[in-house]
């Protein structure tokens, strides 16, 4: 023990060597997220004649580990829109907080008349999100998500559009993120090839179509789950169900698949 009380009780440099302070990261560039960690998989959505149906499963994966099995990846906004998040879950939760504060600010700063005209509609929300996402990618600090915005736009017309971590935006009568872009989108496009077809589609058919896509995704996407959320947005409001279970699963169709594995033809 020496006469310097500051040193008492600390490991001595002459015994243990100098303290390795490298983990303090005093220098070097600021680290931004360079990959997603806890992730959600596909989101699928389709426009029908007076609204939009959107669905995503309730799983948040940690790599190949099915880590969180009760994560709600659909979020309502202003009772006119629903957002579906694919990609990083913590970035989703950040955006959720951001949109909550936006919603509070909007509700205090605008007077809502009986028509509710001053509400931000799905179109406004999508524009806002795309600016946030593009700003973050331009700062090299992206929010690692691919988001579908479903709801009612101008004049209560069905609205469906997407924005991703680069700020790329596009709109289509049917949309799917992640694995769904490969598996679900062809199924959706077969039923709804264009805007005209979506204006003919009934709500029941749209829901049935989305449920079918969720089933196909569960069969073939290893990062998916059979518990999912589904939302229908129409003039009568948002009908969000967060505890749906896939039904009538059957691998019977597998019998008919030929050309893989042991049977060659």
């Amino acid at each position, binding site marked *: 023990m*020496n006469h310097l009380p500051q040193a008492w009780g600390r490991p001595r440099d002459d015994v243990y060597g100098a303290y390795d*302070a490298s983990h303090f990261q005093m220098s070097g560039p600021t680290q931004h997220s360079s990959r997603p960690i806890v992730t959600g998989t596909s989101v699928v959505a389709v426009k029908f004649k007076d609204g939009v149906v959107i669905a995503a499963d309730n799983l948040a994966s940690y790599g190949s580990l099915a880590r969180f099995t009760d994560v709600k990846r659909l979020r309502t906004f202003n009772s006119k829109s629903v957002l579906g998040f694919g990609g990083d879950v913590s970035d989703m939760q950040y955006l959720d907080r951001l949109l909550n504060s936006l919603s509070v600010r909007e509700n205090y700063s605008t007077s809502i008349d009986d028509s509710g005209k001053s509400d931000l509609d799905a179109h406004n929300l999508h524009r806002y999100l795309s600016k946030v996402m593009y700003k973050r990618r331009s700062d090299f600090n992206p929010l690692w998500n691919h988001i579908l915005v479903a709801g009612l736009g101008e004049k209560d017309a069905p609205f469906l559009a997407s924005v991703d971590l*680069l700020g*790329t935006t596009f709109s289509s009568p049917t949309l799917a993120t992640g694995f769904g872009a*490969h598996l679900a989108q062809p199924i959706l496009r077969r039923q709804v090839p264009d805007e005209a077809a979506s204006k003919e589609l009934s709500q029941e058919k749209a829901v049935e179509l989305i449920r079918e896509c969720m089933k196909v995704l569960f069969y073939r996407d290893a990062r998916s789950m059979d518990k999912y959320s589904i939302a229908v947005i129409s003039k009568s409001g948002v009908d969000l169900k967060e505890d749906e279970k896939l039904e009538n699963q059957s691998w019977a169709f597998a019998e008919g698949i030929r050309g893989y594995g042991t049977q060659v033809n």
Partner: protein
Amino acid sequence: MASVFSGAPPAGGPGYSFKSTPTPSQASGIREHSFYPYADNGGSTLGISGADFTILAGDTRSTSGYSINTRYEPKLFKIGGEGPDHVGATLVLSVVGFAADGHALKERLDTIVKMYKYQHGKPMSVAACAQRLSHMLYGKRFFPYYVHAILGGLDEEGKGALYSYDPVGSYEREQCRAAGAAASLIMPFLDNQVNFKNQYMPGSGEGHALQQRVPEPLPRADVEALVKDAFDGAVERHIEVGDGLQTMIITKEGIEERYAPLKKD
């Protein structure tokens, strides 16, 4: 006696047996970001100027890799005019490459052209707008807008004006230009059909004595046919081009916008 516990090691005396402050570690050298802030959204655009008109055209497919994002995402934008619908606009910008950068560029240029009219009380000339666009692109020289832009309008004499750009702002006024994924397929066709390259006057001589056919502004009907042929050819040979053809024709009467289907395969 407060100085006894001042914390500073006595001058010239023995120091602490540990370093109380962590020394900054060496920077870990060059670190690579795994985030790449650009994407290629495919598609192709072209512009041809005539004696009293300019035509711009672009396909409406948006892609990422082998996936089709949507079959309708316009690449042609009216610039200036009144309000969000650009009433009375006389300029058209086409952008192809990274769609998010394209949107950001178009919104900035549109704001600038509108502000110009408020501040100067007259609409911006196409030459002034062209130079401003070059400066905007060069302003991001070290983090470029990853787009090939083409700007069309009518010059002060009422002649068709067409300016083409590279991603960092090099620009030139031309008779015709193709940009984007199928530029290498369309441009040689335009060289031959608009600027009459490799076309010689019959019987004007042998070898070097042959005289090149002199290019002259083409009539509107011919140009419209050329645009259709160019895209029908590109759709056949390039997978990122297709779905729909958006055309804008700028004359002294204003901007006429058209849509025609292309092959969706």
